[in-house]
């Protein structure tokens, strides 16, 4: 296992903006982000790997011509994940699912986390906006900028996602009374 890497600098120099430097300094951060938007560690690893490959194919070994490489990588991961989600829903045949290590049912805290399970059931667009808003503490404007979409789209997706969670009977947010 690699050690927890240093954070990617907020104001990277051109030398810091290479894909290799990004992978070195921000893999853990990006892997966590991938885990939250995919809901699955293995998919997160695949997603990060594919995103870094895509970045390298696009930018090569030189500096990435972007001011915020981490945000750019997140955006790449987001779009790859959404594209993959669509593709898998129409063409991918899942033959089986395996865990890294077989574990007794319910032994993973994540399995017992109803809100986490409900989040994983949301459409990928809605789930991603909630992760950016409530994990990254990004403003809606920042989310729109990160994802390359309109502020109104972000608000719409967040509104729908929160409403769906409130309506999930397992979560107990749908009593209709004041909280």
């Amino acid at each position, binding site marked *: 296992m690699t050690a927890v890497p240093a954070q990617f600098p907020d104001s990277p120099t051109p030398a810091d903006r290479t894909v290799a430097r990004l992978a070195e300094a921000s893999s853990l951060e990006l892997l966590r982000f991938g885990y939250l938007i995919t809901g699955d560690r293995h998919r997160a690893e695949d997603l990060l790997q594919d995103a870094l490959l895509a970045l390298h194919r696009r930018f090569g070994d030189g500096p990435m011509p972007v001011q915020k490489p981490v945000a750019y990588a997140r955006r790449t991961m987001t779009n790859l994940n*959404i594209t993959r989600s669509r593709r898998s829903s129409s063409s991918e045949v899942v033959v089986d699912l395996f865990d890294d290590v077989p574990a007794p049912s319910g032994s993973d805290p994540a399995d017992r986390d109803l809100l986490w399970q409900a989040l994983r059931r949301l459409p990928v667009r809605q789930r991603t906006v909630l992760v950016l808003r409530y994990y990254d503490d990004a403003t809606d404007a920042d989310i729109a900028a990160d994802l390359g979409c309109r502020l109104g789209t972000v608000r719409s997706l967040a509104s729908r996602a929160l409403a769906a969670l409130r309506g999930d009977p397992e979560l107990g947010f749908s009593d209709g009374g004041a909280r």
Partner: protein
Amino acid sequence: MTDPIETALRSMLRERAGDVTEVPGAALDLDQPHHAAPAQASHRSWFLVAASIVAVLAVAAGVVGIQRATRHRSVAGPTNPVTPTSQPPTQPSTQASPPISAAARQLQWSFDLTAPSGYQLLDRSITPRFQTASLRLLKDPDATSCCGGLPHTVYVTVYSAGAFDSHGVTGGTRFDVGAVQGYFGSRPPGLANADTRVGDQPLPTVSWQYRPDAWATVQATTPATQQPAQLRRVAAAVRPGATGVLRTPVRLGYVPESMKFAQLTDDLVEGSGANLTLTRGPLGAVTTTQLSVQVWSDPGPHQDLGAATTVGGRPGRLLTGDFGASVVIGRREVVLTITGPLAFRADLGRITASVQWASNPADPATWFDARTSLP
């Protein structure tokens, strides 16, 4: 007031992020970069170690195909309540119209835009200072998904008189738009506010004056749409001065004093709905009191939430989480929400009681001219 589900989400996401404590670099083996376990056919081995990644990437790039975003997604037809003047509703509401207030006068398109061949118009937006339209080039190899939706790659912004900072514009290359002298240059996105922001990088921009004191711009985000010929095609399709009527299924007889029209957005093709927003304070700020009227193109999840209520005489649901009210009409849902200081939310009852519905709110042809929808 903190929404409990938002608090719970923050806490849960941080806890779950903690599930990932390290990058599984132990699987790195440059001699065997793809030794996936048989039981994990979709789980490729992890080989991201900084010292080796570039070499590995160079090899793997030829093996692993990265598919581009979906490029030719079929889309539903327009579901919005906005009707250009050129397409008047067949049977507009015959109910008496109140006078048009100064704020409501802004709820009218002041430019027309027919998407050039090969482009698709995705959404439009009105604010007091500018109006926008987003388009995409249908066959654009560099377009990626926008929030998982259709990629917005070209932005048209038509500024109100005096709202555009033209400093430096005329220093750009001359780039006529039809018979009008325009300029081409690199301009930052977000010329007006966050709603026109599409990233951090300056974008190729065509700017021209459609009136002596008023400007319009076209900005593009992908190599294909940034071609001068493409920018010129879009710019030539913009016709400032044409007007279009917006239509809404509801008319509000009351809105809290001091709330001003802030924005109307209209998703033309993806079903995110139309959203009319009034605010007391800057749009988007946490402390701003905001009243929104959203018209969705599907029933949505609210119908099973909250308590029963009535909105303008129609049965609906009172949404304590969003603090608003929802009414499902036909295949659409109309949601009124108010956010901001708790005391201000007491106005919701008065707002919902003041709602007047179009004669047949399920039929957009009967909806109100939006300019009469605000007191």
